């Protein structure tokens, strides 16, 4: 047990802080949430700054154009950028954290050369076409068909929960190439141009009133066979390999932000007098324990990933189960702090309370996560 950082890590942190302090004041104002072109421009400009400063693809392998940083360095990067209030990964999310790593791990030399550098430079934006209306928790039930026609696939179907679809250049797409094969065996991974004929994007409004996501309708879209990454019908494995790139760092920024929110809630409660209510005060104290521990669990998971060379530990599901619940409790408590102002969407934390509702659902519901913990970690038998 050693929670201190190495001198190299401290130096990395110091240089990063210095750089952030130098560049952040010069950033333009953030675009409004519904200004999609503005958001793309903002996010890609930031990515270009990271690229020029040598921070782009920090956690990618060097031979993929990345910096080959350790998970701990990545954690420090995420922690410091969050603390400094730097822009989020935003529109570059899928490219940097999912599609890019997939191509880096499973793509041919030509595919890597074509697709990876534009992601790192912020020149091209990716989105994800995995979920379907009938395939939510049960992703392998996906129905979008791809039929071979010469050197193209002809793709038809419907995808949902695609973020940044309006401004993306490429979509990483899971399609069914062999309907006769067992569910997990007939799936392939394709890179699809968003501008291709037959692609229709319709914004999907969430309960928070915003359109962060979209539905995507695919009507006989032609995708070159050369845009398939991995072997035909091997797309499930290709995707799972990529998920294993997750090195415990997925929620670093969020946990840092939650701890800051908690401190701000305490300050607000002191200011508006609700701090004198022991029920509320003790709840805030409890959440302090919770988020301190979740922050340590993040560090633990990153340490595990570092030692195992990137293979994800079992800590991810444990973390996500507890974090998704704690995050909802945090914003429920924020509503207590706000009192009657908790119904005002213009007050800080009110919209966050709404979006926190997705945390026990997205990326594996809490029910699915509990199955994973019980079966894969505890070794309990699969249900009949």
């Amino acid at each position, binding site marked *: 047990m050693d929670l201190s950082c190495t001198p190299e890590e401290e130096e990395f942190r110091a240089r990063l802080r210095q750089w952030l302090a130098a560049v952040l004041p010069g950033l333009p104002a953030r675009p409004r949430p519904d200004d999609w072109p503005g958001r793309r421009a903002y996010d890609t400009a930031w990515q270009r700054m990271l690229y020029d400063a040598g921070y782009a693809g920090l956690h990618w392998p060097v031979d993929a154009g990345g910096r080959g940083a350790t998970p701990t360095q990545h954690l420090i990067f995420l922690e410091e950028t969050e603390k400094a209030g730097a822009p989020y990964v935003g529109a570059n999310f899928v490219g940097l954290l999912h599609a890019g790593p997939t191509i880096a791990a499973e793509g041919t030399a030509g595919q890597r050369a074509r697709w990876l550098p534009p992601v790192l430079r912020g020149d091209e934006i990716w989105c994800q076409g995995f979920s379907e209306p009938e395939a939510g*928790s049960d992703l392998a039930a996906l129905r979008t068909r791809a039929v071979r026609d010469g050197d193209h696939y002809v793709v038809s179907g419907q995808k949902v929960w695609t973020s940044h679809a309006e401004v993306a250049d490429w979509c990483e797409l899971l399609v069914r190439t062999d309907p006769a094969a067992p569910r997990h065996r007939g799936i392939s991974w394709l890179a699809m141009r968003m501008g291709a004929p037959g692609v229709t994007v319709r914004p999907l409004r969430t*309960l928070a009133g915003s359109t962060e996501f979209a539905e995507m309708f695919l009507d006989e879209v032609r995708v070159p066979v050369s845009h398939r990454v991995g072997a035909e019908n091997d797309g499930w494995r290709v995707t799972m390999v990529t998920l294993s790139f997750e090195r415990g760092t997925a929620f670093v920024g969020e946990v840092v932000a939650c701890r800051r929110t908690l401190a701000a809630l305490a300050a607000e409660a002191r200011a508006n007098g609700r701090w004198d209510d022991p029920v509320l005060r003790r709840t805030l104290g409890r959440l302090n324990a919770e988020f301190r521990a979740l922050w340590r669990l993040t560090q633990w998971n990153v340490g595990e990933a570092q030692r195992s060379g990137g293979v994800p530990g079992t800590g991810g599901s444990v973390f996500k189960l507890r974090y998704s619940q704690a995050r909802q409790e945090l914003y429920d408590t924020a509503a207590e702090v706000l009192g009657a102002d908790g119904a*005002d969407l213009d007050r800080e934390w009110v919209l966050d309370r709404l979006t926190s509702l*997705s945390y026990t*659902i997205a990326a594996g519901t809490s029910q699915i996560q509990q199955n994973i913990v019980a079966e894969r970690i505890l070794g309990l038998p699969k249900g009949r």
Partner: protein
Amino acid sequence: MDFQLSDDQRALRAGIRDLLAGRFGRDRMRAALDAGTDVDPGMWGELGAAGFFALRLPESAGGVGLGLPESVLLFEEAGRVLLPGPLVATHLAAGAVKGAAEGRSVVAVLDAGRPVSHLDAADALIFLAGEVVRVVEGDALRALVRGARPVRSLDPLTPLHRVTVPAAPGDPVPGADGARLRLEGALLAAAEQLGSAARTTDMAVQHARGRKQFGAPIGSFQAVKHLCAQMLVRAELARTAVYAAAVTADPAEIAGAKLLADEAAVRNARDCLQVHGGMGFTWEADVHLHLKRAWLRAGQWLTAAEAEESLAADLDRC
């Protein structure tokens, strides 16, 4: 001793259910949502004609002469279909504010320190200040509206304003008992919460029966089953508490009803969302409307903290 509804009570409930289905079915509700209209004067009048507001006024005063148990049945139905508007306040104002009983006036409530719902639609406000009940209308109301600040409301069908309490807040309503009015408001809001909690239970069960994942209806998985079972338990306990409180009108029983119904409405809406998965997170699904309304109502009339303190104080009497 029986909780069973009388034939008259059943008929009353069926009547309002039919009225609401005809006048405020899901399509109308979504249309109102898209248009941002909270109170439809035509529907308000029809509610008035059906006795929704005059229900507890004596027949001698042009009312229906029924009691809290009947009111609770009506408000439960209103809660089921997310009927917007200051229903509770207008109902409480019947007899005290001209036109309220007939649904010709829309009456909202001004509860110091809390935002006012449906101010723009209101023809009058009842103002709760301790034991005294006042009515704000006419010039006083117009002055208050001018000074009000609109709030971007969490619940899209419940517009909110922040107001400053008027210097001349109108005349006291003779004979009105502020504490009693607040209790009745809490009970009727609890009935709306009950309707919402029961409705989200139905929605979750319906979805769990139809939605297939992993080759089976998700309702065949214990995790989903148990979520739904706990939703029913919450709704049924809330129903018991609300109906009993309506019969006895006991303050502690009303506080308990509000507490349990608030919890049932909020938690059932959340569990309903969880059962619906990603689909529940969309604007298109109604579940968020139930959750937002439930959150709002939980902060009105009697909060959990107030209810718990009053129930604690009541323990001396047991």
